[in-house]
């Protein structure tokens, strides 16, 4: 394929208009010695037909959600995405447009993002949300930088029960500003160890991160933790699962200062983990400290409502090294997907969805509770994900499950040895059916020697 439109004739006319006799003359600023001679080692052009074959063949060598019954979660979830989301996203007006630098011809994107912000504010119960960040992990890192900036302190406490992937991203970001990231253990019931937390918050602590639910799926007693944190003068950063907010108290209810999270579950396909959607919401007072774009309503010169990017003096293209963040391109289209998804769910649908996840995950939990071959790490105080301990060798169990079409969960043994070798993080979304849950139970039962 070639997407270049100029023909040989066009090129000749253009060279003439420029006043050079060959393209080479235009390359004059590049010293001969610096240039590539000959072609790159990349193979010849391919027809569209050939590219489609090649890529389809690669796609076939994977085992996607449509084929396997997945119980994998850990932040990324296999949810049912209604066709209307893809419809909106496949409109070229949305997907091929640039950042809305010329607001007057970008009202579609601007209003869509404004509505997204408004929805995130509603979900989280916060005053305002930004237009998106890369993903949940870097959003948490940005929240950390923001809190340390506001507090002018350099220490942050994170729960042990946090995804180690997120933790690693946090550490990379912390290293630059020499922020100390310290861990708070979890207690026997899987919740944050409040006593330990209370002890660890010191003068230098800018903020405490609360993961709600935490990495093990457990719902934390957020109100208590928030009170404890605020009493000791630190800020509370809540890292939340957006779907859980359909039934679980939003950070606005327990007075969190900054809220971040991974927005993939809001209408975005899993896509092997990217693009994701980092969301951030905060209190009114902190808006000017917030990273990323913000869309505001305003009026045009005829007094009609319209939308613009605002508070740009926070951003890198104006403030440069003093910007609140270096972010420029973010995840605009994923934010639009989230908005369409939430609109399609609606108020009641959103609650129903969250409830359904809670119900289905509890059904599996209770089935497993009565099954030999496994034990359950914690109680029922989870949202849609829980930790199960497989008694038999985990590798064999996972292979057996897969042979029955089931991706049984994410092994936790490496990252959390304290949970045991057989620990598995099991997520149950609304896509799973009772029959599939029973099949899961049967695999465990068999592995446990029952039949």
């Amino acid at each position, binding site marked *: 394929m070639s997407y*270049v439109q100029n023909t040989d004739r066009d090129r000749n006319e253009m060279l003439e*208009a*420029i006043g050079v006799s060959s*393209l080479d*003359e*235009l390359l004059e600023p590049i010293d001969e010695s610096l240039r*590539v001679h000959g*072609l*790159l080692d990349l193979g*010849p*052009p*391919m027809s569209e037909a050939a590219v*489609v074959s090649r890529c389809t063949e690669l796609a*076939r060598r*994977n*085992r996607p959600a*449509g084929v396997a019954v997945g119980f994998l979660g*850990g932040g990324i979830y296999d949810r049912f995405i209604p066709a209307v989301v893809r419809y909106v996203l496949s409109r070229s*007006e*949305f997907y091929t*447009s640039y*950042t*809305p630098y*010329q607001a*007057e*011809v970008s009202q*579609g994107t601007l209003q869509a993002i404004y*509505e997204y912000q408004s929805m995130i504010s509603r979900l989280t119960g916060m*005053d305002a*949300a930004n237009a998106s960040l890369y*993903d949940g992990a*870097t959003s948490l890192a940005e929240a950390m930088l923001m809190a340390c900036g506001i507090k002018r302190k350099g220490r942050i406490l994170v729960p042990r029960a946090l995804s180690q992937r997120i933790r690693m*991203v946090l*550490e990379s970001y912390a290293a630059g*500003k020499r922020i100390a990231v310290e861990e708070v253990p979890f207690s026997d019931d899987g919740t944050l160890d409040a006593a330990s937390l209370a002890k660890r918050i010191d003068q230098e602590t800018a903020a405490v991160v609360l993961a709600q639910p935490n990495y093990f799926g457990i*719902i934390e007693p957020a109100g208590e933790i928030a009170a404890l944190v605020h009493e000791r003068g630190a800020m509370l950063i809540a890292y939340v699962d957006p779907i859980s907010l359909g039934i679980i*108290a939003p950070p606005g209810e327990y007075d969190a200062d900054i809220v971040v999270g991974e927005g993939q579950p809001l209408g975005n396909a899993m896509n*092997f*983990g*990217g*693009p994701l959607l980092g969301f951030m919401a905060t209190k009114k007072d902190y808006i000017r400290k917030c990273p990323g*774009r913000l869309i505001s309503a*305003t009026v045009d*010169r005829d007094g009609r409502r319209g939308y613009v990017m*605002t508070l740009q003096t926070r951003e*890198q*293209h*104006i403030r*440069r090294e003093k910007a609140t*963040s*270096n972010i420029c*391109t*973010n995840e605009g289209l994923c934010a639009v997907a989230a908005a369409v998804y939430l*609109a*399609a769910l609606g*108020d009641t*649908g959103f609650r129903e*969805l969250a409830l359904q996840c809670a*119900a289905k995950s509890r059904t599996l939990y209770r089935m497993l509770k009565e099954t030999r071959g496994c034990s359950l790490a914690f109680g029922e*105080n989870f949202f849609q994900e829980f930790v199960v301990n497989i008694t038999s060798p985990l590798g064999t169990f996972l292979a057996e499950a897969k042979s029955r079409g089931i991706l049984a969960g994410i092994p936790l043994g490496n990252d959390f040895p304290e949970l045991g070798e057989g620990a598995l993080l099991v997520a149950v979304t609304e896509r799973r059916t009772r029959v599939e849950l029973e099949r899961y139970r049967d695999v465990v039962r068999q592995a446990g020697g029952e039949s």
Partner: protein
Amino acid sequence: MSTTIFEKGRDGRSGSFIPRNDCPLDDLDIPERRTLPLDLPCVAEQAIVRHYVELASKNYHIDKGMYPLGSCTMKYNPIVNEEIARLDGFAGLHPAQDEEDVQGALELIYELERALSEICGMEAFALQPAAGAHGELTGMMIARDYFRDRGESRTVVIVPDSAHGTNPASVAICGFTPRTIQSNGRGLVDLGALREAVGGETAVLMLTLPNTLGLFERDIAAVIEIVHDAGALVYMDGANMNAMLGIVRPGTIGVDIMHVNLHKTFSTPHGGGGPGSGPVGVREALVDFLPVPRIVKKGGRYTLSHESEKSIGRVHPYFGNFNVFVKAFAYISSLGAAGLREVSENAILNANYLLAKIAKHYDITYSGPCMHEFVASGRNLKKYGVKTTDVAKRLLDYGLHAPTIYFPLIVEEALMIEPVETERKGDLDHFAGVMARIAEEARENPDLLHDAPHDTPVRRLDEAAAARSPDLCWPIELE
């Protein structure tokens, strides 16, 4: 003015796509229940569709017309790549799946990394960064850990004054101190100033190539030598790589670290502000510092390697923006070596052709030949009381998009124009014609420009009012 989705209905019938619940709902015993109302919109599917179709009609987009935004490389986004990326075998993968279940995906990432390395002359690429700025930050982390590993304390990163804002911002977030150096009269790095600035505390020179004026640094060999001689590294912001595909391989000429923007050079759509992807490439000496995991090929199988003690760790929880990789991979495969070179040749040709035409009506500070873009100035219109913003807004009335304006900062009333290779001569002629006409209007009827745009979905918007009291959220109804 479109009503918001909230106004379209709070009492409609929505959510009927959710699977049926076949599990008991009673006795769920969920702690910490929500009491705050949600107040999400409630509208039926058709109302949603109409809402977004209406919003869509208010957007400019590449499938409508040319996007001469300098530094943004808004090129045609091939449709087939969208279709490929939507295949369930890609879109439906969970990132925690076993390696054996995602061999096709790993191969694609591996091959894309290899292709980028070949194109850029780098030893290896890491694909985790989710955008250009993220890539810059990753690059800075690599430099930081590299010097730490060598036991050197270097704290300064030199950044030319023409740099994109993300450059100093990334430097700062990484804990380095940015130091700005001024360009010389030709818009290039001033070798003298550079020599003066470089020293024992210099960690990195962060350079955009071609620079944001669209100029290739003629003295690049000398520049790199100066930096290397001081023991520092050269970082290249590769956002402008569209000028150099198959023409210059940065690694070969001495660049140590660089990023490319797949959402510019490699044709993946910009989505109204993302997602992007900003892979970072390094020379051999720095490979150990790349983020983990790395994908390695062993006997025809692809596997994840976390073995790298020196690695900076992770900058993304998974592999990066995989969906974007798929499109870039399809693009590079489609074009092949010859096609990529054709891209840059035509990007350069188009820019120089447009420069020749625009130069008749607007000031050009730095003379050509330019590479893939050039910077004009609207300062010649100041005498009519017309600003570059006015020119930009007037362009909208003609159904065109405006160039990047007021950047780079070193050009007064800058109009940064990047036509890209996928526009045809006729499109450029049309654009140049309109620009000429606007220059004429500025002389004859400047108010036409002051009052522009006239024919857009909304007229000029009050940004100051928004900044004074931002309205970031549609009012919540607490029932």
